[in-house]
Every structure is written in structure tokens, then in C-alpha cells.
């Protein structure tokens, strides 16, 4: 028994591990390039963020090793406890923190800062996995529904109270997990569609959008002409969409002019290069000026000379785009997609629900971060400040993502010793 739960190196998923190492290494090098200063040319200079990031990488590696050495049942056993602890920490931070950029999200311990919201992610993922893996759990059960909603919404609400909208939005990503575990497809579809239509409603003139939707509906009606039910569904969807568009229109015009402007800038309808649009504009310049092959290591003038704000954290992708061009950016995007697909593959090969659900949680959280972060830097999505996993500078996020990923790798490594469907 003891031997079975020991780490078996031949069962570690080496592809995921390799991608992790490449990402962390690339992230470190890009942080160095982004904040490079000739006065502090050593990449090991711990007075600079790249030196500090190296410390975080070391700590992360140590924690990763610890996770791999811990008994695989530990995470199941301690999931609720961790969750409770994280909720308490996230409430505590509201009272024991100084305001940083409008948010109460950081504990300051000496010269280091910790962001408990980052650590709440894997705790929530573990708790969700544990609750949903219960043998009589069913999403069709209303009571269970409420519990699931509560598990997700509680940390979200606490983090919103910290004024850290980006981190709170991450919890929306659990919709993918629920979808896999029985949530009907149309809910996911409607969720995504509503998001897309809401954005479109602000970008495209509402009348044009309505005509396009009516056109699409007519096409659908033509294709579904044999099914009365289908035609009714199309009509219902169309009416809902028009209602939504009109509603958003109305809400938009109820906004104050400066709020309208901010929304417009975020959506790219208006260019305000000095104010709200500055970040995205500079980010696009940095990435766009990279060209096909990029400017080369440490040659990225836009990021190096601080034209891009938050260049080592939320906008770290600018450095990749500027110094390694379209080729480098593409490699990064493709590696992320490979990682996501690999994580699903890992999740699906688990023999118990806890492991599988946790695997989906990891994939969903990482995917959400990736989409929002890259989408923001290339001007496709509004500026929502969340880090790019493994790349962005910051100890809290790197450790949190490492823990998130290595718990999955640990669970995966001992999957062969676990009984199919067992729940410890």
C-alpha cells in the first residue's frame, strides 16, 4: 500500500512537465528582457524583478517536489480545509492590507507581497472536485446545484470585495468543468453566446447587428424547416438576443459620458491614446513592431524602455511578441493549446471522478487566464488584469499555478494504483 502511493517516475506526464519548464524558463528570460537595465545586467541580480523571479522559481520547484513526494490522498483529504483557510485569508486581506492600485489584495511580509486570491484557485478546484466526486452527486439535484454554486461564488464574492475583478472573473471558467460533468451543452453555448453578443452589441451599431441576427435566424429556419420545435427555438433565441442588444444599448446610454468613453476605448471604437487606451495602444505597438521574426533578445525597445505598462506582469506577452515576432508568438500560442489539450487527455484518463474533475479545473483555469491575458494584449478583449500563467512576474501567481499543475501531475502519476471509480 505504501509503495503504491509512492511517486512513480515512469508515470509522470513528462510532456506537461517539459512544457511547464519551458514556460517558466521563457517567462524568466522575458521578464529579464522586459525590465532590463544596463546598471543591473545580471539576470541573477535579486534586487531586480528577474532576480526575484528566480527565487520564486526556486521556491516553486521546491514546492513542486514536495507535492510529488506527498501521498496522493493528501489533496483529497485536505481540500475542504485548504478551501476554508483560503476563504479566511482572503477575508483577512481586506482588513490587513494597504491599498495597491485600488485593490485590497496583498499581504505584505517584509519586501515580499502575497496575493491570497491566487491560492484560492487551486483550493476551490480541489473542493469542487471533492464535492462533485461524491458517489451520489448529480447536477440534476437542485440541492447539489446550490452547493456547487456556493463553492464557486464564495471565493468569487470575497475577491470581488478586494476590488480584484480580474481574479474574480477566473471563477467563471468552472463552467467548462460543469459542462463536462453534466451541464447541458446549450447552457455553455448560451453563456458563450451571451458574452459574444454583449461585446458585439457595443461594437457594432445595434440595428446592423439585429439585421444580421434576423438574417441568420431566417437561414436557420430554412435549414430547420422540417422541425417545428427547432423553428420555435430559433424564434426564442432571436427574441432573446434582440432583447439583450436593446437592453445593453439602453444601459450604455444610461452611463455617464466618461464611463461610455472608457467602454468605447476598451472596445476599440474610440482611440484615447493618453488615457484609457494607452496601455492597449502601447501593447499593440510593442507586439506589432515585432514583425515576423522579432527584434531579438534584449532588442525590444518598446518594452525595455517602459512604453508598455505592467510589462513584466500582465503585459509580459508584449516582450515575446516584440522580441520574437510572429514566429515566437505562434510557438507560445501553440504550446499553450497543446498544454490544454494534454491536460484534458490527462483528466480523461483518470480512474476516479475526483482526479478527473480536478484535471478539468486545472485546464479551465489556465485556459481562462491565457485567453483573457493574450486577448487583452493584442486588443481583442478589454483590459482585465490577470497574469499569463508561468510567464508573468509574481511569486503568488507562479507558486499558485505550480501547485495547481503539480497536484494534477501527482494525482496522475499514481492513477494506475487507484481503483476505477474509487473515492478513497
Amino acid at each position, binding site marked *: 500500500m505504501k509503495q503504491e502511493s509512492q511517486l512513480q517516475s515512469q508515470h509522470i506526464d513528462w510532456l506537461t512537465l517539459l512544457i511547464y519548464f519551458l514556460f517558466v524558463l521563457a517567462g524568466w528570460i522575458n521578464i529579464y528582457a522586459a525590465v532590463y537595465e*544596463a546598471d543591473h545586467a545580471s539576470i541573477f541580480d535579486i534586487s531586480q524583478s528577474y532576480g526575484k523571479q528566480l527565487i520564486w522559481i526556486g521556491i516553486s520547484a521546491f514546492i513542486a517536489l514536495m507535492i510529488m513526494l506527498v501521498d496522493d490522498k493528501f489533496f483529497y483529504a485536505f481540500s475542504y480545509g485548504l478551501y476554508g483557510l483560503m476563504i479566511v485569508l482572503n477575508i483577512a486581506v481586506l482588513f490587513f492590507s494597504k491599498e495597491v492600485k485600488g485593490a485590497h489584495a496583498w499581504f505584505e511580509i517584509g519586501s515580499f507581497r502575497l496575493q491570497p486570491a491566487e491560492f484560492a484557485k487551486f483550493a476551490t478546484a480541489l473542493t469542487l472536485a471533492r464535492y462533485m466526486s461524491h458517489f451520489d452527486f448529480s447536477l440534476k439535484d437542485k440541492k447539489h446545484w446550490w452547493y456547487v454554486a456556493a463553492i464557486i461564488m464564495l471565493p468569487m464574492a470575497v475577491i470581488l470585495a478586494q476590488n480584484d475583478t480580474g481574479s474574480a472573473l477566473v471563477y467563471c471558467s468552472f463552467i*467548462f468543468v460543469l*459542462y*463536462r460533468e453534466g451541464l447541458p*451543452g446549450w447552457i*455553455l453555448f448560451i453563456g458563450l453566446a451571451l458574452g459574444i453578443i454583449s461585446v458585439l452589441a457595443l461594437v457594432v451599431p445595434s440595428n446592423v447587428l439585429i439585421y444580421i441576427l434576423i438574417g441568420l435566424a431566417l437561414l436557420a429556419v430554412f435549414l430547420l424547416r422540417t422541425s417545428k420545435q427547432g423553428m420555435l427555438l430559433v424564434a426564442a433565441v432571436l427574441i432573446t438576443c434582440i432583447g439583450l442588444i436593446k437592453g445593453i444599448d439602453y444601459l450604455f446610454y444610461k452611463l455617464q459620458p466618461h464611463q461610455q468613453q472608457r467602454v468605447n476605448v476598451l472596445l476599440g471604437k474610440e482611440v484615447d491614446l493618453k488615457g484609457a487606451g494607452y496601455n492597449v495602444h*502601447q501593447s*499593440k*505597438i*510593442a*507586439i*506589432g*513592431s*515585432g*514583425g*515576423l521574426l522579432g527584434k531579438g533578445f534584449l532588442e525590444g*525597445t*518598446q518594452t*525595455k*524602455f*517602459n*512604453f508598455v505598462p505592467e510589462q513584466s506582469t500582465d503585459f509580459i506577452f508584449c516582450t515575446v*511578441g516584440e522580441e520574437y*515576432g*510572429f514566429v515566437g*508568438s*505562434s510557438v507560445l*500560442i*501553440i504550446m*499553450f*493549446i497543446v498544454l*490544454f*489539450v494534454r491536460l*484534458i487527455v490527462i483528466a*480523461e484518463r483518470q480512474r476516479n471522478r475526483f482526479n478527473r474533475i480536478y484535471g478539468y479545473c486545472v*485546464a479551465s483555469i489556465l*485556459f481562462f487566464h*491565457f*485567453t483573457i491575458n*493574450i*486577448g487583452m494584449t*493584442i*486588443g*481583442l478583449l478589454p483590459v482585465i488584469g490577470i497574469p499569463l500563467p508561468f510567464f508573468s512576474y509574481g511569486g503568488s501567481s507562479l507558486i499558485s499555478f505550480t501547485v495547481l499543475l503539480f497536484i494534477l501531475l501527482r494525482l496522475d502519476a499514481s492513477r494506475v494504483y487507484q481503483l476505477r471509480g474509487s473515492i478513497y
Partner: protein
Amino acid sequence: MIDAASKRVTLYIIFVTIGLIFLLRLFWLQVVDETYVQFARNNVLNEVVVYPARGLVYDRNGQLLIYNDAIYDLMVVPERLKDLDTNSFCDVLGITKEEFIRRFTKIKNSKGYSRYRASVFEKQLTIPVYAAFQEKLFDFPGFYVETRTDRKYVYNNAAHVMGYIGEVTDKIIEQSNGYYRMGDYYGVSGIERSYEDVLRGTRGIKYVLVDVHNRTQGRYKDGLFDTASVAGLNITTTLDHQLQEYGEKLIQNKRGSVVAIEPSTGEILALISNPTYDPNLFIGRERGNNYMRLLRDPQKPLFNRPIAAPYPPGSIFKIIMALIGQKEGVLNENTSYYCGGGYRMGSIKVGCHPHSSPLPLRPGIAVSCNAYFCNVYRSVIDNKRYPNSEAAYRKWREHVMSFGLGQRMGIDLPGEGMGNVPSPEYYDKIYGRYHWKSSTTISLGIGQGELGITPLQMANVTAILANRGYYITPHIVKAIEGTKLNRPEYTKRHYTTVDTGYYGIIVDAMQDVVERGTARVAMMKDIIVCGKTGTAQNPHGKDHSVFFAFAPRDNPKIAIAVVVENAGFGATWAAPIASLMIEKYLTDTITRAWLEERMVKADLIHPKPVTDEAGKSAAKPAH
């Protein structure tokens, strides 16, 4: 399980779709759309102009006249200020704390202020302050000294020739087709202006990378696209500094001009305008104040008299009349005219001083008989060879203008005047056509009336006499960067309409003027000087004292014209100055100290010369 598998595929599709959207977007931003490359360049590239050293200026003997001097501006970058000890800082700079605060407020309110960028805290530190500051620079982080160059004039002589440089105006920028930029300096007057293109050199451009706060971060591509600045070319002028300085000393406290030319080349040896000023007043931080002060000075020190001011030439014009008369065949050396204290014709009367009478040409010139040359003028204008006096006058004017009068000769200095030789149309306008004749314009014959001649033109006429019939356009620059200036306009001989053969007797007469005529004061033991005095009447006050001369008589080395305004007889002031300068130039010694002393000490400007010692400073040479 079918459900689970399809859901997995749905998730794969979502992942890959997002990935593809990102790749397409990146392809658009990075590969297709080029505008971001330009935006990026504009962000980080700063053009820094590298100013070349301005060309130096030398005199004909290689004596340095103008060079570039380092000046030190105290700069401050407010963002880098740290723990400034204001008291000690103010002590070093010699300002009060209130002044310190006032300046900082001014800097902060100035246009384009940035706390990351350097602003000028104090322009042009004095050397002691600069030295004191250099020692303590480390105590004042945020401050540093920037070195620039400004012009420095070695001597406070020849201000009008040297000219000065100043900051470009909007108009100059516009005219330069974008060559000059705001804050550039350019030659405003003198050589600085006329040889601006030569002296200024070529600006270089250095591309530097700047960060978001506009702080310099290094060279762009290791200077691959930089262009080096090319220093301006050095100029050797034709001036003889010693002669110039000596002439300025002689003419101090007198209003007037001196122009000395080397006849064989047209090179200007001295060009003096008095009252003058120290050209160094136009550099440094008092530039603006000094300029306004000089502009308001009633003595008009900024006026470049020798090349711009037209004077009635007076009797020296009789020389030209004698030449034209011979050429026109109405005069030869034996032609004698009677003089009874003047010239009378009808109601016209031109007075003359007492002398023996009648006289032929040579003594006529020597005693400068007015009646004689009124007669010459009458015989030229009333010459039966021409259908009417207008035609004769045209011919006369043509002769006069062949001596370079009544026109700009084309000296390489700005502000040259034309002088005036009235056109027949001018008299038509006043008297009506055919209603004027020799008697109407008789005063022209003795260099009065409407005639206006600049001292430069006078000196040029002297050079013509020295050359017996031709001149080379006077010019101020001899060589550029050691290579002799070879511009055709400054090497071509301009012959007068009067043939060389007619000059001999005139030169003889001019020698008589000095040796036994009106200008005996100009006579020297070993040097044969040929000259002519003039006492030009002018409606604004006392007569101008005029003298021109060349020496030695054979193979002349110097031709000189001197005008001293409102000073009386030509022999009293102009002739001694010219004679002393000739001696100085040819022998480098002064044998007549008493004459020199008389000239130097004479003050014709200030009513009480003894009590007005301070007023002299502007005109007093340094050496």
C-alpha cells in the same frame, strides 16, 4: 460515454478556435499591418542634432580674430533632485533663496516642462562660478553643467567686419527651407553673415533611444544611421589686424570711416567705422540688453559707415573730373582757367579760396581750385560733340560710374550702400526735360550737390588711380581653409572708361597735393604719397574732412580713403590719419609721434572731452 467524448471534442474545438483567432490577429498585427513599426520608431527614436564647430577667422597674416569659446549652462533634471542643500547651493551660485524658488517656479511653468528632462537653470555660468560648481557637483544630484560653444572675438576691433551671430528668427527659419531649426544660431551681420554657409559647417544627427520618460538610453543601432557633423571652414580675411587696430586708435572719438585697399588685388586691409563697439557685447547672456543699448545709442555705433554711408565727396571728385575732361578731349595739361575767388556764371556763384591765377591742370589740382573744375564740368556737359547737355551728361555719368560709383560694387559684406550719381531722369523730374544744363548741375563738378559716395567707393577710386585705370572689386575674404579665394568677381580687372594714358598727369598732380599743395601734412620723407583732400559741405553741420591717397607712387601697396564727419578741412583730420596709416602699413614704424598723439587725443564727438573719459570706452581699442 458518447456524451462525454463529444463534450471533450467541443472543448478541444473551443481551445483550438481561440488559438487560431489569436494567431490570425497576431499575423495581422505583426506581419500585415506596418503602422505599428512606425509607431514604435516614433516612440523610441530621438534625433539629436550635433552642432559642428563654427569656422575660425584669421587676418591676412594669420592672426586669429574669431574663435569658439566654451560656455557652461547649469542644467537641472528635477526628477533626479535628492536631498538638495539649498543654502549651500545658493551660496555657490550666488543667488538668494527667493531667487532659487522663483527660478524653479519659472522652469515648472515653462512650455514642454518635464521633470525627467533637463531644463536650463542658469545660462552661461561665469568661469569662477563654473569652477566652484564643478568642485561641488557631487553634492547636488540632479544638477549638471552642459558645455556649449559660443563665439569669441579676440580683439574688440573691426566689429562691423566681424559681425555677430544670433538666434534664428521665424523668418530666417522659413527662408532657409527648413535648414535652421528653433534655437539655432546664424550669422546676423558682417562676415558671420556673408560667409555663413562656409563658417557654419554641416550639422550631424545622432539617433538616440529614449525611454517613456524621454531619458536617453543609448545609441540607435550603434550609430549606424548617425551622420557626423563637419566643422565649418576657417576663413582668412584680407584685413591687416595691426593696421585696423591702429586706424581705430587714430579715429577714436571722431565720427567717420577709413577704408584701406591693396590696389593690385582689391583686398581690403582695413575697414573702420567709428563710433564702434566691442563685438564681444554680442555674446554671452547680456547679448539682448547690449543690442538694445547699442541700437538706441544716438551715435549709431551699429551703422556700418564705410560701406553704407554716402558722403558728398567734395574736392577729391576733382580728380575724376580731370580724368573725364581729358578723355572727353576738353582738357589737357596746359588748359588754364582764371579764378577770381570763385566761379561765376549768371546767377550761379561757387566760391574759392585765394590762390594764384590763372592756373593750368596740375597746380589746379594741387590747390584744388573750384573755378577750374566748374569750368571743366561746364566744358564736358556743354561739349559740342553731343546734341544736347542731357546726352553729354549721360556720357559723363557713364564715365563716373565706370569708377564704381553710384552702384553696389559687390563687396562680400552685407549692407553695402550704392552711393548716388543722379540720373538725367532725376533732373528731368525736378527741372523738366531739356530745362537743365551745365550751370544747373555745376556743383557736381566739385563733388557737391546730389553726389553721394561711400568711403569704400572712395578707396576704390584711389585704387584705380594707384593702378592707373582699373580696379578689382574690393573684398574682405582672402582664403577659405588655406585655399586662396578664387572667385572671378574678386579677380577680374574692371577698367574705367578713361584710358591709362590720362592718369599720369593726375598722379603727378596728386603727388603735388601732398608735397606742395593742400595736404602737406601727409608728406613723408621716404615715401611718395599721392593724395587729394576734400572738404565736403553737408547740410547737417560742419564740413566733412575727406582725404584719399595711395603710396608709394610707383607700385603702390596701399590705397586709403578717410572721412571724418563734421571735422572741417580734409587736411586737418583725414589727411593725417591716412598718412599715419600709410606709414604704419608700409614701414611698421611711426616717425611723427606728435601727429599721432594729436589724432589719438582729439575728441570731436564729446563736447567736453576731459570730463567725459568714461564715454570713450566703447571706441577704445584694447591694445
